[in-house]
C-alpha cells in the first residue's frame, strides 16, 4: 500500500538551541511535549542542541514518551566538556565531521574526539553533510569508520538555513560532483559490510549501496511535510530541513492541526506532481523527482529536477 497522508510526522529534526538566541526552557518544554503528543518516533537533534541547559531533561522526557532520539555533536571543546561532565543517557550520538574536513581529513584530532566520546560512555557514528566540498571525501570517511571501528555512517539531508542566501547554492552538490564521486569509486566499490550506512539522498544511496535497486520499490518519494518535519529553536515548523517554508509554530498550534492545514496539503500536492524536468524520464516512478525541497529552490533552470540527477534516463 503506498504511503498516504499521515496525521503527524514520524521523523523530526529539531534545532533545540541556537548560539545567537537560546530558547527559554518553557519553549523547549512546549516543543518536547508537542513532539511526544504527536507520536513522533524518531528525532534528530541538530547542533548546538547539546549546549542548551535543558537538553538532558528533554532527552529524558522524549525517551519516556517513546521517541527515539539521536543528537549531533560537532566535536567542539564546549560540547565535549558537557558530555564529559555527566554521561548522556537515552540517546544515540552522531559526530559531525565537518570541522575535521579541510583540504585533507584531520585524522588525528578526529580520532582524539572519538576517543573522548567513548571515554564518556558514548559510541558515536560519523555524520557528514553531503555538501559539494565533502562529496569526494566520503570514501575516505567510510574507510576511516572501519579503521576506528565506528559502526554507523550517515549522510543526512542538507539543511538550509531559513534565512538562506543565493550564495548557499555554492555548497550544494550537483550532478557533476556525483559523477566525480562515481569515477573515484570505480565499479569495484563496496562499503564495509559491518558498517551501517544511513543515506538520505536517493542518488547518493544508489551510488554507495550498489545493490540498492532491490530496495527501491519501498521508496515512496519525498517525505517532506508528511513523515518528515523540521522544527527550529523557536518552535517554527518546516516541511523538512531542506525546505525553507514555514508551516506554523508549535508554540501556538498543535502539530496535528498544522498537518491538516491547507498549506501543508498544498506542499504534498506539489510533491505528488512530477517536476516538469522529469517528464519522459524512465526512472521517475522510482525516484519520484528525488529531493524536492532543494530542487524547487535551487534547480529552477532545470525545471526542478533533483540537483544530483544528470538527466533523463
Amino acid at each position, binding site marked *: *500500500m*503506498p*504511503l*498516504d*497522508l*499521515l*496525521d503527524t510526522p*514520524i521523523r523530526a529534526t529539531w534545532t533545540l538551541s541556537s548560539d545567537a538566541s537560546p530558547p527559554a526552557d518553557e519553549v523547549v518544554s512546549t516543543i518536547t511535549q508537542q513532539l511526544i503528543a504527536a*507520536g513522533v*518516533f524518531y528525532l534528530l537533534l541538530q547542533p548546538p542542541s547539546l549546549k542548551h541547559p535543558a537538553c538532558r531533561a528533554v532527552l529524558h522526557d522524549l525517551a519516556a514518551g517513546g521517541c*527515539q532520539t539521536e543528537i549531533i555533536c560537532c566535536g567542539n571543546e564546549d560540547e565535549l566538556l558537557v558530555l564529559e561532565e555527566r554521561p548522556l543517557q537515552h540517546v544515540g550520538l552522531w559526530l559531525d565531521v565537518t570541522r575535521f574536513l579541510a583540504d585533507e581529513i584531520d585524522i588525528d584530532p578526529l580520532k582524539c574526539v572519538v576517543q573522548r566520546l567513548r571515554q564518556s560512555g558514548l559510541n558515536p557514528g560519523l555524520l557528514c553533510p553531503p555538501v559539494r566540498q565533502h562529496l569526494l571525501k566520503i570514501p575516505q570517511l567510510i574507510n576511516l569508520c572501519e579503521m576506528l571501528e565506528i559502526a554507523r555512517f550517515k549522510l543526512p539531508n542538507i539543511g538550509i538555513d531559513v534565512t538562506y542566501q543565493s550564495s548557499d547554492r555554492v555548497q550544494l552538490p550537483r550532478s557533476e560532483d556525483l559523477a566525480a564521486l562515481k569515477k573515484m569509486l570505480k565499479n569495484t566499490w563496496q562499503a564495509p559490510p559491518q558498517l551501517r550506512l544511513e543515506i538520505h539522498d536517493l542518488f547518493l544511496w544508489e551510488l554507495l549501496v550498489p545493490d540498492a535497486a532491490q*530496495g527501491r520499490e*519501498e521508496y*515512496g518519494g519525498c517525505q517532506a511535510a508528511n*513523515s518528515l518535519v523540521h522544527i527550529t529553536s523557536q518552535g517554527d515548523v518546516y516541511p523538512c530541513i531542506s525546505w525553507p517554508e514555514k508551516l506554523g509554530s508549535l508554540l501556538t498550534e498543535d502539530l*496535528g492541526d498544522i498537518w*491538516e492545514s491547507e498549506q501543508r496539503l498544498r506542499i504534498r500536492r506539489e510533491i505528488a506532481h512530477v517536476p516538469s524536468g522529469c517528464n519522459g524520464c524512465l526512472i521517475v516512478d522510482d525516484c519520484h523527482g528525488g529531493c524536492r525541497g532543494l530542487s524547487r529552490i535551487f534547480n529552477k533552470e532545470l525545471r526542478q529536477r533533483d540537483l544530483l540527477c544528470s538527466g533523463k534516463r
Partner: protein
Amino acid sequence: MDYFTQRPLRNSDIVWRREQRKEERVLRALEEGEAVDEQGTVLLVVSGTMHQLNLVGGMIWCLCDGTRTVDEITAQLADEFSVSRDELESDVREFFDELQQRGWLSYV
C-alpha cells in the same frame, strides 16, 4: 495447538501507531459506502521502512497484544463490522499468515 486458540503477538521491534484522525475519516467514508481498502490507518516502521495497514488490518494489528486468541479477535471483528464469522475467518487467517511470514508477529 488449535489455530483458533493461539494468541497473536506483535513483534516488539516494530514501531507503530494508530492514525486516529485518518481512521475517523476512513470510518466516515465507509459509512458513506466508499471503498477504503487502500486507505492506511495504522503506520508501522519495520527495519527503517514505513508500511501502512488498512482499517481492518489495522484493527487486527491493534488487537494482537498476546492476550486475545485468534478466535476472540475474529469474533470482535465480526461484531465491529456486522458480518458473520464465517465470512471473516479465511481473510483473517490469510492476514495472520502474511504477518507471520514477514516476521511481524508470532503466537504465544
